[in-house]
């Protein structure tokens, strides 16, 4: 059950009202998307604290730039692109500070982890998924998450990443295969 009531109002209405300065509508729009933004950030950064920071940064940018959102496409693609940029900024700051290891490498899974969907559910399958995502190059992971989680088109992903559609299509395809091979190897470990 979703804890919020924002679903009762169509997102397009909320966005239109938020863009005209209605703060309550903006809050409801945020509540509609915050879970997914957090999930995206968590899978990008690999840890909860960084994901929360990324969500906060994304929401700040939403407050300041809600009028820039294309009302036809909705807030999801815009928020996804902004969240990914926020995650990259956090990653760069972390690399500069050199205080904490790179988050993607921090996700550890036991050798005997089985297939995520057949054997596991909830937290375990999420950890397995994150471990698989952590094996992907950053650009491939970003492209895959924007496409699969936020529903961005190839063109939108390309625009968000400052890349070409051909490159993004290749990155997404490669990421899907690598992730599948990762799970396939896990299936072979525990048949």
């Amino acid at each position, binding site marked *: 059950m979703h804890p919020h009531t924002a679903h009762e109002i169509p997102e397009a209405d909320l966005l239109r009202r938020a863009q005209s300065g209605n703060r309550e509508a903006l809050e409801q729009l945020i509540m509609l998307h*915050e879970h997914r933004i957090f*999930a995206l950030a968590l899978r990008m950064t690999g840890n909860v604290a960084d994901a929360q920071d990324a969500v906060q940064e994304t929401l*700040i940018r939403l407050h300041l730039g809600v009028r820039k959102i294309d009302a036809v496409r909705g807030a999801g693609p815009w928020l996804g692109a902004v969240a990914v940029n926020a995650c990259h900024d956090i990653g760069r700051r972390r690399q500069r500070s050199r205080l904490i290891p790179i988050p993607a490498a921090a996700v550890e899974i036991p050798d005997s982890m089985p297939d995520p969907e057949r054997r596991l559910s909830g*937290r375990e399958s999420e950890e397995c998924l994150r471990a698989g995502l952590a094996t992907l190059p950053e650009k491939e992971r970003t492209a895959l998450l924007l496409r699969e989680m936020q529903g961005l088109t190839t063109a939108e992903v390309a625009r968000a990443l400052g890349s070409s559609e051909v490159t993004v299509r290749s990155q997404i395809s490669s990421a899907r295969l690598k992730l599948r091979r990762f799970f396939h190897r896990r299936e072979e470990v525990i048949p």
Partner: protein
Amino acid sequence: MNCPEWEERVAGGDPEAAEHLRDCPSCAALADGLARDARLLQTLPPEAFAVDYAAIRAAARKGAVQRSRRPKVLAVLAVAAAVLLTVKLPLHRQPPAPVAKVAVPPPAVGVARAAPAVSSTVPKVQPRRGNPRADLDRRFADFLRTHYELQHPAPLRAREIATGNPNVTILLLQESKGDANE
């Protein structure tokens, strides 16, 4: 996964791969696996429902307000900096460096054209009278002395040390600490 030539096309969602999937069990299994992975990616993680979103929303509201004010503060600072620079820059300008003029020996007898006359002396740099920077320094020294003595009972002595640059004066502030000769 024994059909590498089709794997990328299947993963890329190539519509032409649909026919191949009917004849190739390996690629069909791959397509099934990819579909499972996509569903898993679309499923939100359990952590997503355990976060204090109200706190994040409040922090974001505050952050947005602060950030929207930042350009105004920066603009004010920029104007202040511009005003300071406009006021200060002329005071920091150095007098033009003296041009050393080299004495040229008189032309030898028989030379048709005479060399132009030049001064054989290097002009001395004279300190400017009523130097605004020096006045400012003195006023600043007076202010320091007054302000410092208000807070510190020990008498304070200021000594001005001239430098080669007439616009630069070093102020040496010394506490006497009871010894008038120090």
